[in-house]
């Protein structure tokens, strides 16, 4: 084992009513890629926040290169060479990429020099990014690049990555891994949090597993199967989604030759998109975020209106109907962005249940709301989908990402949709919850719902889809049967890694 970089001993942090970390100890070596595993709410985020100086531990010590390490604030942690890529992006939407990067640096150079360095580093690591763009107009994947580049420019000794790959395509993940391996070989340690166990097996040297705030074990991911790791995390056996063969029926949803401009200035316009989904079929739509996913969801859900005949539900034109009218007809959608799009952050779960469920669940009558019914509906979602919350009166904001995701997907699934459109249904959700969500989608299809699942997670799409189509630069490929499709074929459908280049290792070395 190499020299120890960071030694964590008996770290404990309690919040009212919950012990987030309970006597957690582990070491990270110089240049080691260390995985931190655990379900949503296992205390991973609290632990890394303590290392990054955002949260003060109640007790326990940290030692960095042999000297006591107790960062009072992130600035101190950054000065000691610790950088962090956040799970919930800590970006400023109204500012440009360069300005966002500058804010995360202690001593940023002049804007012009900084813009040049951003371009250099982004090209060196295959993460193309225009420094002058406004972050608010970037896709989730592009936003993450901003965060990663912000860290890389600081030349960190320890890079903390909280769920870095949840929004990336396999090609992007591979390039990210090349970047991380290169960093690791240069002596940068990486603390890596992810739910994707196969990725951890491919990347990480060691893993520490947390369950309910306690360190419940360590393993060497290369020598451990994903199933074993998942079971260590859950503390029991893992249910793998299974599908029973169902009947595929009539065409439920049809889009023919639709082109619409994107409402966002930097969005991707849809070009000549055609979709046919039959009852009981799951259509997987793959592709890198920012290639028209949001627009496709908007067109399907009714947020973006189109010509009446361009979108048809059971042969009925619905192109000019808004989301509520489409919901009434059985076309439901769950968008990607949990806070702010799928759920209203400051409203309670009951209110959020009402917001999309009012029409189909009969939660309103003559404009008056039925709170008891809404509460029952919210409680049913919480119970059916194992949403961990004290009760439906809690604000959506207070739930962890994975739990809220279960809630927003469950809310649509329980409304007996005839067509359900989901975008990134398991983003940032742990293995067992992701399995539950996928199982719910499969069950829904089996009962005759047509499901369109837009996702960047190709493993997920291969697991649940009947047919697969790729969305690139606003164009949708013709669908192909998912069974038997190889990674290479999918890569071809996606047209390679869009705008991605393999890291120019030479340039990267020239930088250091």
């Amino acid at each position: 084992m190499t020299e120890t970089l960071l030694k964590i001993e008996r770290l404990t942090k309690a919040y009212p009513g919950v012990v987030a970390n309970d006597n957690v100890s582990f070491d990270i070596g110089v240049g080691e890629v260390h995985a931190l595993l655990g379900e949503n709410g296992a205390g991973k985020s609290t632990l890394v926040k303590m290392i990054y100086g955002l949260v003060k531990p109640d007790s326990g010590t940290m030692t960095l290169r042999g000297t006591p390490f107790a960062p009072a604030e992130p600035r101190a942690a950054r000065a000691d060479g610790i950088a962090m890529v956040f799970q919930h992006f800590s970006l400023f939407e109204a500012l440009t990429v360069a300005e966002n990067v500058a804010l995360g640096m202690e001593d940023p150079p002049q804007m012009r020099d900084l813009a040049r360095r951003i371009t250099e580093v982004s090209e060196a690591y295959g993460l193309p990014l225009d420094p002058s763009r406004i972050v608010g107009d970037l896709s989730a994947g592009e936003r993450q690049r901003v965060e990663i580049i912000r860290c890389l420019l600081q030349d960190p000794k320890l890079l903390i990555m909280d769920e870095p790959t949840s929004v990336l395509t396999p090609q992007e993940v591979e390039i990210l891994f090349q970047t991380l391996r290169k960093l690791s070989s240069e002596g940068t340690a990486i603390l890596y949090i992810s739910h994707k166990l196969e990725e951890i097996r491919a990347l990480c040297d060691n893993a520490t597993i947390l369950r309910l705030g306690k360190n419940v074990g360590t393993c060497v991911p290369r020598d451990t199967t994903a199933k074993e790791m998942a079971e260590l995390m859950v503390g029991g056996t893992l249910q793998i989604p299974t599908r029973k063969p169902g009947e595929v029926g009539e065409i439920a949803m049809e889009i023919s030759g639709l082109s619409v401009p994107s409402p966002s200035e930097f969005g991707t316009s849809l070009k000549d998109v055609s979709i046919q989904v039959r009852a009981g079929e799951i259509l997987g739509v793959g592709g890198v975020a920012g290639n028209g996913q949001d627009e496709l969801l908007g067109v399907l859900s009714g947020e973006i209106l189109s010509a009446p005949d361009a979108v048809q539900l059971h042969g009925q034109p619905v192109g000019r109907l808004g989301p509520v009218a489409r919901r009434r007809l059985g076309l439901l959608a769950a968008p990607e962005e949990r806070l702010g799009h799928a759920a209203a952050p400051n409203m309670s779960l009951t209110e959020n249940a009402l917001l999309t469920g009012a029409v189909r669940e009969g939660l309103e009558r003559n404009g008056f709301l039925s709170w008891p019914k809404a509460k029952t509906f919210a409680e049913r979602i919480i119970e059916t989908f194992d949403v961990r919350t004290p009760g439906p009166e809690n604000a959506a904001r207070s739930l962890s990402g994975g739990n809220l995701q279960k809630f927003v997907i469950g809310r649509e699934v329980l409304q007996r949709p005839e067509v359900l459109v989901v975008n990134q249904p398991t983003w940032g959700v742990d293995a067992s919850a992701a399995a539950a969500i996928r199982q719910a989608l499969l069950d829904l299809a089996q009962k005759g719902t047509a499901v369109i699942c837009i996702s960047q997670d190709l493993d997920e799409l291969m697991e649940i889809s009947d047919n697969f189509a790729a969305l690139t630069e606003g164009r949708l490929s013709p669908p192909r049967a998912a069974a038997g499709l190889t990674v290479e074929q999918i890569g071809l459908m996606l047209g390679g890694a869009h705008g991605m280049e393999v890291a120019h290792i030479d340039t990267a070395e020239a930088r250091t």
Partner: protein
Amino acid sequence: MDLSAINPILLLASLMVAATPILLAATGELIAEKAGVLNLGVEGMMIFGAICGFATAVETGSPWLGFLAASVGGAVLSLLFVILTQLALANQVASGLALTLFGLGLSALLGQGYVGVKPPPTPDLHIPGLSQIPFVGEILFTHDVVLYFSIVLVALVWLFLRSTRAGLILRAVGENHDAAHALGYKVVLIRSLAIVFGGACAGLGGAYISLVRVPQWTEGMTAGVGWIALALVVFASWRPWRVLIGAYLFGGITVLQLNLQAAGVAIPVEYLAMSPYIITIVVLVLLSRDKARAPAALGRIFHASS
């Protein structure tokens, strides 16, 4: 009706004087709002600055000490807003309204002995050479230092927001205080400083009314200028130079309509009196048709819970 009674040189010169109080107050409020703080107490801070400046100038005989006292007074009153909204986490709208009412009342109390008193005159700065230029020189270069300072201040604020690190941090705090906190920036401190700056500017603007524009003291003499300044910031899309345009437009039309009234134009006085408000708003609405957006965290309470 006799339009020839309107002297264009005097008109344009007094336009700048009329605009300066609004410009000062709006520039200060712009900084506060860019930091994510909605301070509706501008009117209160202005009138408080007006009486502080007036009283000090009368007692000491120095208008400069008056202006200094006015900024200090405005800043001190804004500290009350800091305590309420940044430390006690009170609602910003309610606190701002309270500040305005408090400032109006307090200034009336302090100003009781000063009604009818004449303040020492604020000397005009006749810039040698430039002020001799016919027409333009008389309009632009025969004013007092505070007026020039207000224009320089707009330029400084623009430069600060656009190209300094501190300005970037200020904007970041106004945009997403949670992310700024996560990066280790002191949200409450930065916002408090922005509020105090806004208070000082508003106080200075108030004193400009009582020492230069009118110059005398009457209760409630700011007469809504603080509210106009608040509206200007919004309609100017939080951009310093647009605030300047808006303030001069408003000042200009105010002066013009007074002149038109004096000249006996056959338009009812009420229409003339409302014209500055309408025209300023229409012009700025047209200007702000581009993707203008308020600072995302504007008016939201920040509490460092993680």
